[in-house]
């Protein structure tokens, strides 16, 4: 009977491992990490694989010892156990071994964390009078509320009073869209996250970007997209997905009420600034238009475009 139990332990653990391997080996299943589309995403993924490798090693080693022991040392086995109370050398060894592994992980994590979060933190750009945060190509204010994301795109230069003034008041010409994040490939995007009601969390899986929004605070974030998934077609007046048809979504990752799950947005990465500018220009014209006829012909041709109307 003891064989049965050791086999059970072996089977369950191997099944768990197998599930991971299958999920990794068959990307078509969609059971593994989603597309990665930012510099930060690639680094986080590498780190993820590093940790997975180390964990897999410890997992196999410890579970292997456990299962082997169950197989090898049942009460029915001949002989009797030896009364060992401990072994200082072993203790020191197996204190240091995991410590080394963990230090490796820490060492690998630090630069990525620094890259992801220290940039612009604490936010000097918010305090001073800089028109733009240093090295940012694009500034987007994300205002979360129950239950959607309002994104404000700066369409002209920011006011002299600084970016905080822009975030609070803004320009009349700013483009405000719900739930659509438009950037272009290679742009250094500076996001300002805030909320009007409760804590939300701006989660873009494809960018491996996640940051809570705190009531009363404006939190800066940075990212740089490395893959594009759409382009703007001026002839059709709408955003056209690439052949790969990657649909990248934005979600809320912090419970924000009954409709928490409903805070869905989309990420559109344009191939270049030109495409983005064309989209911005088009959307602005749609938004600022004072003539019905300028908008009507395309009024119901595409929701992508219509979504930009606000």
């Amino acid at each position: 009977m003891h064989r049965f139990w050791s086999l059970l332990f072996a089977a369950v653990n191997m099944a768990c491992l197998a599930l991971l391997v299958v999920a990794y080996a068959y990307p078509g299943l969609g059971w593994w990490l989603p597309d990665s589309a930012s510099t930060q995403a690639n680094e986080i993924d590498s780190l993820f694989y590093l940790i997975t490798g180390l964990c897999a090693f410890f997992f196999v080693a410890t579970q292997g010892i456990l299962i082997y022991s169950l197989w090898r040392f049942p009460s029915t086995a001949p002989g009797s156990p030896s009364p060992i109370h401990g072994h200082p050398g072993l203790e020191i060894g197996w204190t240091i071994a995991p410590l080394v592994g963990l230090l490796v992980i820490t060492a690998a994590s630090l630069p990525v964390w620094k890259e992801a979060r220290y940039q612009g933190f604490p936010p000097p750009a918010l305090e001073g009078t800089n028109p733009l945060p240093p090295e940012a190509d694009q500034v987007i204010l994300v205002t979360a509320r129950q239950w959607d994301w309002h994104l404000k795109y700066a369409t002209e230069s920011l006011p002299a009073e600084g970016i905080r003034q822009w975030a609070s008041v803004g320009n009349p010409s700013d483009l405000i869209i719900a739930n659509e994040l438009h950037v272009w490939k290679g742009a250094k995007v500076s996001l300002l996250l805030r909320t009007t009601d409760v804590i939300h969390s701006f989660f873009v899986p494809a960018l491996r970007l996640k940051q809570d929004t705190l009531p009363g605070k404006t939190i800066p974030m940075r990212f740089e997209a490395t893959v594009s998934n759409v382009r703007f077609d001026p002839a059709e007046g709408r955003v056209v997905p690439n052949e790969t048809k990657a649909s990248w979504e934005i979600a809320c990752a912090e419970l924000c009420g009954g409709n928490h799950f409903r805070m869905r947005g989309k990420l559109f990465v344009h191939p270049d600034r030109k495409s983005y500018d064309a989209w911005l220009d088009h959307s602005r014209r749609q938004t600022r238009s004072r003539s019905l006829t300028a908008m009507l012909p395309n009024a119901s041709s595409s929701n992508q475009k219509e979504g930009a109307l606000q």
Partner: protein
Amino acid sequence: MFGTLIHSFHNWFFGRQIPAGSKGRKNQWFREPVRFGAVLVLGLCSCADKEGYPDDLPYPQRVDLIVEEAPKLSPNNPSPPGGLEKSIANLGLVGGKILDPVKLPEATQTEITKLLAEQFGTPAQPRVGDGKTNLPELGKKLKLDSQTLAQGSVAYRRNCLHCHGLSGDGKGSSGLWVHPPPRDFRQGRFKFISTNPAKNLNRPRREDILRTIRMGLHGTSMPAFGILPTEELEALASYVIHLGIRGEVEFTIEKTLLKPQSQVLNLFENYLPDEEVSKDQETLAFFVPKFLQEIVRQYHTAESQVLVPPEYPFKDSELSDSIRRGFRLFSSQAPDALGCVSCHIDYGRQSPWQYDEWGSLNRPSNLTAGIYKGGRRPLDLFWRIKRGIPPSKMPAATLTGEDEGKKTWDLVNFIEALPFPATLPEEVRNAVYGSTGRIAKPN
């Protein structure tokens, strides 16, 4: 045979402690969970995740109070969340008029339910018209065919149900907790519409409903659904119209019949004045399809009655003059002023709460915040000014004269600039935000 089985199981379970055989039948308890489990597994495996309402679920009959007339008062506070119904029940105390549909004779209630079910189907198979009467071509133009509606009902259940409720009553489980309360479609009234007021049509265009769904209502809890596929949005709009029509038929009949001494004839007189009815046609069964047709016709008319704004008359350099004129129109000083500020007190910062048609509390928008429920495009503002928001007592602007169009654009310019102190001319800025020392600096 069975007894032996139980016996051996008994021994296995209790070991050798208990004498065999004596309590065999009592072990039935153990079979229950097993049966429960088997049934559950079978039940679960037999159903995939099928979307949509169950087929046998009917639309619920209206039992909540009807607000016939909302009070004129402006109370200090909004109704507490979850307290809307209680608040409505008290409206009678403060000068409102409420009617209780449950007080209708039982036979009438049954008849209404039956007729509504005939004309509008169930949540799973919604339709407009019973399929026999002559709605097809109008219905098709409005995309009210049963296929679109069925698609809409699935999308509605997924996206809208928990706020707007099964019958569109705005009392879904989440809806109780949000301010302002989700729209109750059952009166067929919509706030943000762009039809021409000349025809006295209080119907939305499909595009108006679509805009609300796409962009949400900023300043309320209605999210933007712009990233849903176009077909789904269209289907949703159709289904919302379906709910609106269904609710309106029910609402109208109940509201009329609940008045003292009223009868079916009053319905015809009030709502179908052109209809020639004989004595034996004075029945609900005759009224409902006719009335339904009338409503659908109105929706259809509304589609072509968009209120087209006059061409924008100003150059960029004239903007600040236009804002100044708009400011005067908005205020109450100038001779032709509209006095918007008497409701949008302190430019909306101290707006009082007011009852709307549904008996819930709302307040005029805070225009210094730059948040516009009905949309932020200049066109939306234009429509709000020219069209008003009738259900919540915002009147349409009574601008007259030749330069009516210009004046409207002046107002639009002023309202657009209001949230941005830097863009306001100095005297306007001082009037709105106080002199320099008293500005509440936004940062």
